[in-house]
């Protein structure tokens, strides 16, 4: 059975940036959130899939979508060659921002598991 770990992005935002923030806006915020997630991934055993959960995030702008999703995926592909991260809890607005930034990197989101409404990023 596939091993999974769960990262709640809303918790990461509060721990890595500010207790009072509820939206993923501005590039420095995106950089800080990605750095926190990357540190978690570095200490994760091989074969474990990480579910990055956006369900408690309000709004996400293009800068954060680029830093947290696109750059994280690119970095993971570089390091491992295979996707180890799955994105879940994405709203229509999150998906719009992510689609725009992934397209620029020649990638797109595809459904991973329909029953959990989760996605993975793949190259075109």
């Amino acid at each position, binding site marked *: 059975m596939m091993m999974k770990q769960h990262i709640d992005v809303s918790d990461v935002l509060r721990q890595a940036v*500010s207790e009072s*923030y*509820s939206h993923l*806006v*501005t590039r420095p915020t995106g950089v800080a959130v990605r750095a926190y997630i990357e540190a978690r991934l570095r200490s994760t055993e091989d074969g474990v899939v990480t579910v990055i959960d956006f369900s408690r995030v309000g709004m*996400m702008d293009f800068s954060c979508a*680029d830093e947290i999703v696109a*750059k994280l995926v690119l970095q993971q592909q570089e390091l491992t060659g295979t996707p180890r991260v799955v994105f879940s809890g994405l709203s229509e607005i999150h998906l719009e921002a992510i689609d725009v930034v992934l397209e*620029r990197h020649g990638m797109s989101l595809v459904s991973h598991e329909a029953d959990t409404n989760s996605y993975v990023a793949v190259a075109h």
Partner: protein
Amino acid sequence: MTTVITVPPSLDDATFEQILDPLSRLAPDDKLLLDARHARWASPYGLTGLLTIAQTRLTKPSLAVPESDETASYWARTAFFRHAADLFDLKGSVPRSRQNESSVLLEITPVVGSEDVHAVVDKVQQKAQAILVNELKLDAAATMRFTMALSETCQNIVEHAQRGGWVAVQTYRWQKRLGRRVVVIAVCDAGIGFRASLESAPGRPRSDRWDDGMALEEAVMRGVSRFRDSGRGQGLAGVRRFIAKWDGKFAVRSGTARLAIVPTWDEDVPLTENLPPFPGAQIQVTIPERVDR
């Protein structure tokens, strides 16, 4: 000698040029009095623009306050005088702001760092739902998209201006031009502007035509950024796409040029060049009330 420039009775993005034209002929340390005594109305662009003018002056300018109590009171409720008091030598009676203005979705707010963008987004989110959905009849998801557009336009200051700027959001009925309610975002700064920002990109290829107009086209239409990182430069280009979905208008002025994404209800031109030079970038987003056709 002090140069007096009259503030037009109705101050918006178009009439603001009537101030910039004589202003462009002054040296930065010349004494200046902006005479707003006969001003009757000002858009968020006009008010944030006045503050931006003050930022460009080496000698503290003066501003004659509107004589109309109604106008001065409204400017006070937008927080204009709170910021103008530091930037101008104010002449005339400045009213205190005591009550909230329901049409002011976001009073004039300084934007310097990314923490300011977070504060702006939080503030607007609280009021945006009621105004955008109930008054402008936009769908519920529009609130998030609107806030996203606001975040991206404010970040333009943080990322590129190299000095602080201003943001304001108001709703009003645009009777003359549109006959509908609109919500307007204005984001103005007196920073380095689009052209200088793109010129600072390492290894930027030179072309025969390079001016403020081309810099705006590159940044807004093609998402070019001064950063090498291919993920950069998506903010304003993304905002432009959102605005088009709402039949809205996006206009940005920088240096001597102004680029506009013009909806069918407006008669503006897509690109205006050879305007009076003015530092920084001044952005206006206009989203009209939705009408069922």
